[in-house]
């Protein structure tokens, strides 16, 4: 013992590494803090906004305070005007999203599973995909009229391209071991698409739906700016044109809410479709 001590002293210095007193409290605290912050940060933002306006630091005609917007919000709800615009926008998004997603998943799967289809379609998809869909909205109106159909179509087209790209990525990256298992059990080609390829690609498809939900909102609001007589986008643009700034802000807030709602809805879809994904255990 003494020998060892003297030896280590002569060789160099003993550096001590003290034990940690933390057995996980710090992590627990951090999580709790983050949960509170998630709720608190938007409220704090609203509060700052309110104070800035009340102090007269910004022109209240252009930037009404949250309390002023709340009043208008209430009026629009009571009069039913907000619901009229919201419901028609929701219909356009849902119909466009649904058909765009179905078509996109179908075409993407075909491209990923049948090499010939992939070879033929991928250059076409790749060249049309980056064109902002709102840029072809005039064309869509020429083809499908000024009514609801043109709004359904523009949303569907935007969703379609995102879904094709994500589905192709998901389908063509299925781990080869799963394909081997399918072949070793002599599973037919069609059956293996439904029982192996699509389930394996499902996380990518869900991710595509998530992006598409935001995109469909974006495209629809833009379309309603220029080519509609109703809808949330119309509410924002029309309010701006008649200088009803408070109604405009109501529209913007509702769009934000729709974005949040679509994310929550897709969380639900994800839990329903991917009960096997480890992260859904929480």
């Amino acid at each position, binding site marked *: 013992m003494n020998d060892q001590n003297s030896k280590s002293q002569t060789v160099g210095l003993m550096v001590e590494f003290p034990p940690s007193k933390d057995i996980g409290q710090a992590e627990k605290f951090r999580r709790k803090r983050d949960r509170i912050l998630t709720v608190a940060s938007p409220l704090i933002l609203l509060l700052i906004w309110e104070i800035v306006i009340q102090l007269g630091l910004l022109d209240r005609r252009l930037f009404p305070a949250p309390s002023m917007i709340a009043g208008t919000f209430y009026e629009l709800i009571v009069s039913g005007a907000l619901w009229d615009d919201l419901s028609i926008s929701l219909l356009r998004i849902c119909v466009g999203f649904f058909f765009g997603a179905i078509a996109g998943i179908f075409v993407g799967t075909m491209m990923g599973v049948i090499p010939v289809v992939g070879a033929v379609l991928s250059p076409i998809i790749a060249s049309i995909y980056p064109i902002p869909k709102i840029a072809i909205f005039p064309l869509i109106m020429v083809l499908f009229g000024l009514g609801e159909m043109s709004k359904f179509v523009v949303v569907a087209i935007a969703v379609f391209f995102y879904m094709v790209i994500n589905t192709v990525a998901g389908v063509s990256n299925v781990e080869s*071991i*799963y394909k081997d*298992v399918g*072949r070793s*059990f*002599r599973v037919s080609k069609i*059956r293996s698409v439904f029982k192996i390829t699509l*389930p394996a690609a*499902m996380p990518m498809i869900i991710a595509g739906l998530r992006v598409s939900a935001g995109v469909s909102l974006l495209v629809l609001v833009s379309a309603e700016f220029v080519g509609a007589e109703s809808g949330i986008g119309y509410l924002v643009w029309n309010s701006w044109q008649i200088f009803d700034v408070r109604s405009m802000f109501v529209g913007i807030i509702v769009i934000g809410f729709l974005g949040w709602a679509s994310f929550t809805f897709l969380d639900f879809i994800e839990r329903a479709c991917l009960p*096997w994904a480890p992260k859904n255990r929480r």
Partner: protein
Amino acid sequence: MKPSTKGVETGMKAHMVDAQKGTTSSRVSMELRGLGKKFLVGSDEFQALKSIDLDVGVGEFVCVLGASGCGKTTLLRILGGLEKHTEGTLRFHQESTGQPPTSIVFQEVSIFPWLNVWENVAFGLRARNAPKALIKERVSYYIEKVGLTSFSKHFPHQLSGGMKQRVSIARAFANDPEVLLLDEPFSALDERNKATLQDELLRIWEETGKTIVFVTHSIDEAIYLADRILVFTGPPGHITQTHMPEFARPRDMTAVRATPEYEMLLKSIHVGLGPTGNDPEIIE
């Protein structure tokens, strides 16, 4: 592999059989004649397997022993229908119409993460539209055999590595093929798990009388499990030796290792495998 509890039984012997076609069973499950495989690497022809003759009898446990890269996995993939041989003939006995010739237990985790244990085990039977009652009976039977009955509704991410491989084994057996193919199924497991699963496999094999072709690079694993060991070298992959270890089952490896027969077998296999300097994969 297993702790020594029993002494070595007398009359136990390991001998070498020259004829590669010798089987321990009267009826043949699988028949290979001059089987070979060529494929293109860049623009060059590569002979992966060459003139393999082999008969595997019903209920036989055959180990294909070789270093990595010798072509033993290619052989297994051909037997499993994942690749086509380019030379010779391959024939399987079929018990009844619709009976699949083979099912594979893969080395890596191959069960589907989106199916629970029960659905994974039922996969092969459902794929060939077996009657519902039969699926239910077989799946329950084999899940019980691998000791996972209380985990039937669990998803793979909730299982340990050993349990996942048990599911894989149950899935292959439940499909009721003529021949079961296992490709180094335990090589990713720790020693204790490996020993447990080897014993479970032997028990299920004895209870079901299935024909098994087991690919491994571990000499001791082959000696512990096999009726017949085919020493495989390559490329081009071919059978260089056939051994029939006749140690009484259940084999107690500690006792087996103490016998002169084991010593002889080991030496002979090493000769068959060729120089070991360049294949660190071979483990005793």
